[in-house]
């Protein structure tokens, strides 16, 4: 568990980061909290001759709560998310989700940016950000661009981010209505067997808006438009929930691993989603 030798860079600003990326190309990777990249390097599954640590880069931290939008700097840790009361008021699902990520020690190091940028299907934040309809800010040699979370993930570890770009922030609308982040895992520190992020808006007795995403049930997070649509206009009764689950099960494609075979994962996905919808609706 000892990585190959590498050069360690600790730039102070984004231009310096971009310069390093340009100089070293494929040989360089940026590191946020390091909880995904460092183990891969230690296993020698990732060979990174130039490691660019973002810890000292200006402007990558901070949580800004606007009137309509929330902006979270890429280097914001999971612990920061939990501690921020303004964020809890604007999008309480983040605290609920962050509490279900790893353990306190990891949450002090693990960052939002690293979690969403890595493209690991096991990470919780990508699905959550799709549920919130977040935008990811990418900065590269050609300037800044924004990519919707729902368009960002292409395959496991494959994203819309170009090699020379750095993900600097996530932005999403202030949330209304009921929410739930439901996750089944084998133990503390584990990735999800199945996890669901649900946001529901209630108008009168009916569901006016619904956004549903699930984690670790395909090689990317799955935001199911059809699952949300199945709830809109209904009273979120048993039949509607069943329709939403059916729609989601049509979109996911889990594979067998140590957590269990495909049939089990599909069953659990339905159970977890049902519970998440019920809890979100009870809060709507």
């Amino acid at each position, binding site marked *: *568990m*000892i990585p*190959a*030798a590498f050069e360690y860079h600790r730039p102070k600003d984004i231009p310096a980061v971009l310069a390093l990326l340009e100089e070293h190309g494929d040989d360089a990777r940026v590191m946020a909290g390091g909880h995904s990249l460092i183990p891969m390097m230690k296993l*020698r599954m990732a060979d990174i001759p130039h490691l660019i640590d973002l810890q000292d880069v200006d402007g990558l931290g901070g949580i800004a709560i606007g009137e309509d939008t929330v902006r979270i700097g890429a280097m914001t840790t999971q612990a920061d998310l939990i501690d921020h009361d303004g964020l809890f008021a604007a999008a309480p699902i983040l605290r609920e989700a962050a509490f279900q990520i790893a*353990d306190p020690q990891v949450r002090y190091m693990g960052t939002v940016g690293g979690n969403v940028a890595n493209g690991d299907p096991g990470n919780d934040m990508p699905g959550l950000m799709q549920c919130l309809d977040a935008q990811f800010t990418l900065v590269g040699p050609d300037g800044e661009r924004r990519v919707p979370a729902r368009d960002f993930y292409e395959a496991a570890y494959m994203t819309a981010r170009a090699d020379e770009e750095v993900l600097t922030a996530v932005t999403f609308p202030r949330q209304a209505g009921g929410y739930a982040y439901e996750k*089944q895992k*084998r*133990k*503390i*520190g*584990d990735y999800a*067997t199945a996890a669901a992020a649900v946001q529901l808006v209630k108008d009168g007795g009916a569901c006016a808006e619904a956004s549903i995403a699930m984690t670790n049930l395909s090689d990317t997070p799955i935001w199911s438009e059809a699952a949300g649509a199945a709830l809109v206009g209904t009273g979120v009764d048993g039949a509607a929930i069943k329709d939403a689950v059916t729609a989601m099960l049509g979109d996911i494609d889990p594979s067998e691993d*140590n*957590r*269990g*075979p495909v*049939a*089990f994962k599909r*069953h*659990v996905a339905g*159970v*977890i989603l049902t519970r998440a919808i019920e809890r979100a609706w009870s809060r709507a």
Partner: protein
Amino acid sequence: MKDDVTSREDRVANLKGMGCERKRVEDARFTQGKGNYVDDIKLDGMLAGDFVRSPYAHARVVSIDTEAALQVPGVLAVLTAKDLEPLGLHWMPTLAGDKQMVLADGKVLFQGQEVAFVVAEDRFAAADGVEAVEVEYEELPVIVDPFEALKTDVVLREDLDPNADGAHGPRKHPNHIFTWEAGEKEATEQVLDAAEVVAEENIYYHRTHPCPLETCGCVASMDKVNGKLTLYGTFQAPHAIRTVVSLISGIEEHNIRVVSPDIGGGFGNKVGAYPGYVCSVVASIVTGKPVKWIEDRMDNLMTTAFARDYHMHGKISATKEGKITGLWCHTTADHGGFDACADPTKFPAGFMNICTGSYDIPTAYLAVDGVYTNKAPGGVAYRCSFRVTEAAYFIERMIEVLAIELGMDAAELRRINFIKKEQFPYHSALGWEYDSGDYHTAWDKALKAVDYDGLRKEQAERVEAFKRGETRKLMGIGLTHFTEIVGAGPVKNCDILGLGMFDSCEIRIHPTGSAIARLGTISQGQGHATTFAQILATEIGLPADSITIEEGDTDTAPYGLGTYGSRSTPVAGAATAMAGRKIRAKAQMIAAYLLEVHDDDVEFDVDRFVIKGAPERFKTMKEIAFAAYNQAIPGIEPGLEAVSYYDPPNMTYPFGAYICVMEIDVDTGEHEIRQFYALDDCGTRINPMIIEGQVHGGLTEALAIAMGQEIAYDEMGNCKTGTLMDFFLPTAWETPNYTTDHTVTPSPHHPIGAKGVGESPNVGGVPAFSNAVHDAFRPFGLRQSHMPHDHWRIWKTANDLGLHD
């Protein structure tokens, strides 16, 4: 001291002797990060070693090219089997009478097997060197199933003559290791044939791993000037390691010093000898410098000694009323590529013949077939005496299956079959003499403590509510009454590699009334420095705080067989008491001389000798110690020292009653432990606080094993659980609350009546957790499912029973 007015009660308390909750003296350094583990050892010029390991489970090694590795800056040498062969060290003996490759000799037999050893200036260069060694393999068919191993033409161990006997008798197939039998085959079959009721079941106890927090490692230092080899390492049996090193290296035993420093958990994983030890010694001899080798977590999980992997086929017979008449068991034991079990020589399946458990079973038969497969070697006693968890799990599952067959309550079935108090010493059908027990008292106390009848009523109501669709959670009540067999053991039937399994204690009393005691055991977290001092305090009347306990350095400690199988208290604890009594006997003579009376006219009283009938006239042990060194006493040698080598007359048989109440979510397969009650009877209790800690730790490992922990392989022999992401090690989050309780039935043959406790909770805990899962599904027709009961397996049980329809 003649004006001593301290009350007797205060004098007893001052000793901190047996029975008191003395705080652990080890914790001052462990809680401050001041422990001294093997990886803390840094010697001048020390080099680092690391292994090139096989990615394949079964392959020929066509070639090994070390040229590129030797070009890596800092790499000094790369050892292969060819380099070790001239020294005769390319293979080494295992504790089970087999031999094991130190480095791949032409082929590899399991994934992760040691192929080459890279020696470098530091561990970083060593890791780069490992990466640069080029090995060409030719893949061979992989056998991961022991039943297939006994049928296939694929021969795993081509080094063995297929027609020759193994270390434990005839072999039936080239991949067969041994058959071991106990009890009476024909008589048992007759009983089963004639029985009113027979229950039959296949019970698999899966492969798992002890996974101590500190992995295995060593530092070998050959001093070429004085010819002395020092070997520091994570050894549960330092003296045995010294003898083995001497036998295989030819270095005389007096020139070898083995030191076990602080050890961060062993649980059986650190009993055996590993290729890393041999390679480090050779590398130190070759380079003339100290060489350190420390495993990483994946090395530890994938290659060092696993535990269990027993496929047990059982039959149990009874009368219609539930009186058990016979027990039959055939076990297929998957030992992996080499037989590296750590069992006493005459017991290749350990003490599996304790599988009649706590029950008076008149007729029984056990056969165990050991088999080679393409998996890592091992088969150690993971927090249990040799194969005792397997035995306890087997009988406690068979009892449950029989209860289903009979339509009986499993608690009552146990009660009517327990060995009765008056039957002890009890001779079991499979050959053991149980020393003492009072199972009915323990059982009744346990059932009452949890309100067993109330729980059963609640469970019945829950089943009805479930059937009405009002809940998706089931409730299981897991029962276990286990009997351990620990304290190996009598030299007449217990040895490892011919080394008798006695143990030892040497005591030196210092002139001012403090002492040092050295033992042949070695603590890995058990708290020996605390508890052995308590035994001595009570025996010799000096405060435990004035007694240093030292273990683990073979240059100073008396010879002993080490710590595993709960043997430290039964064997070394007995030696400690006996050595203490020798001290006391001499002290008595000194006291009598000082008091100017006959030896028989003084008697021991807590911390002093008093004149019988005149307790105001006394000499304290402190005074006696000073006199022993500094006063000329006619007929008595100066000094106050004693040594005892204790060969126990029998094993000890701790027992206990455990009850687990579990909630199970049939839709997700998740569980919640609502209540866990553990009653342990370990005989005389030395330190209740340490016992409670031992029970909590053992139960938590039992929880892990029963509910998720496994070493799993795919059909290609790839280990699927090589990291702590997939290998379940519970944290505080997954660990439930435990309620501990006890009864005290002293061992009649042990000097202080103690039996040992560290492993009981794992032995009793695993069936208690597993039985709770099974019990939850019993109303829906479940007889047997296999551990570990992780989410998907519980879900599958529910699914197979139609509970998701």
